């Protein structure tokens, strides 16, 4: 079974600063995907960024980027130039890679607050 660990329950940062959220996971799989989802106070789950484990290049989406260290089973999210709208709960998630349905396994989340 896969497990996902987010060791930072809460973080806060000043607006415009950079913040890094940590995530580690445990799996015996070699091929898988990793995701960061954002859950603002409205409670909707929004996909922020995704990473394929077989790709060495770190994924980036505008101000969001990841640091994927496969050997260390680490998948951190960096938010640059943070904005007030980034205030949310952030969940790291794991998905096995095989044809067919794949369930997401989530971490416990990090509550991020951007301070004006």
């Amino acid at each position, binding site marked *: 079974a896969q497990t996902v660990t987010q060791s930072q329950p809460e973080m806060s940062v000043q607006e415009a600063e950079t913040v890094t959220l940590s995530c580690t996971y445990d799996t015996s799989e070699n091929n898988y995907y990793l995701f960061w989802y954002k859950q603002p106070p409205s409670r*909707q*789950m929004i996909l922020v960024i995704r990473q394929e484990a077989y790709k060495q290049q770190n994924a980036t989406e505008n101000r969001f980027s990841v640091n994927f260290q496969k050997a260390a089973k680490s998948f951190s999210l960096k938010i640059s130039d943070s904005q007030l709208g980034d205030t949310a709960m952030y969940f790291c998630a794991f998905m096995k890679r095989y*044809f067919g*349905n*794949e*369930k997401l396994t989530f971490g*416990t989340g990090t509550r991020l607050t951007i301070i004006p």
Partner: protein
Amino acid sequence: EPEVTQTPSHQVTQMGQEVILRCVPISNHLYFYWYRQILGQKVEFLVSFYNNEISEKSEIFDDQFSVERPDGSNFTLKIRSTKLEDSAMYFCASSETGLYQPQHFGDGTRLSIL
């Protein structure tokens, strides 16, 4: 952009009653999922559904739960004889295919059992 829609947004039910949570996945998606989030806890997988049958279910998804795709658009989660511990946010998600396609989530239904 197409969205997954869930109704109702909030459901209050007496313990022991049956409840049906409804979801309309994105129209060209083939894989459907239900997840649950108890207040303050992480999101947990309940069940996945493809080709009109359950593909995988978690240990949470016991005999009181069932899913159905009654027509070409709706995907429902039924909870029979609800318990207090069923109080949670229930998220529906869908994906275009299973292989490396992100799951798109609805806004959730907050279920409160009294």
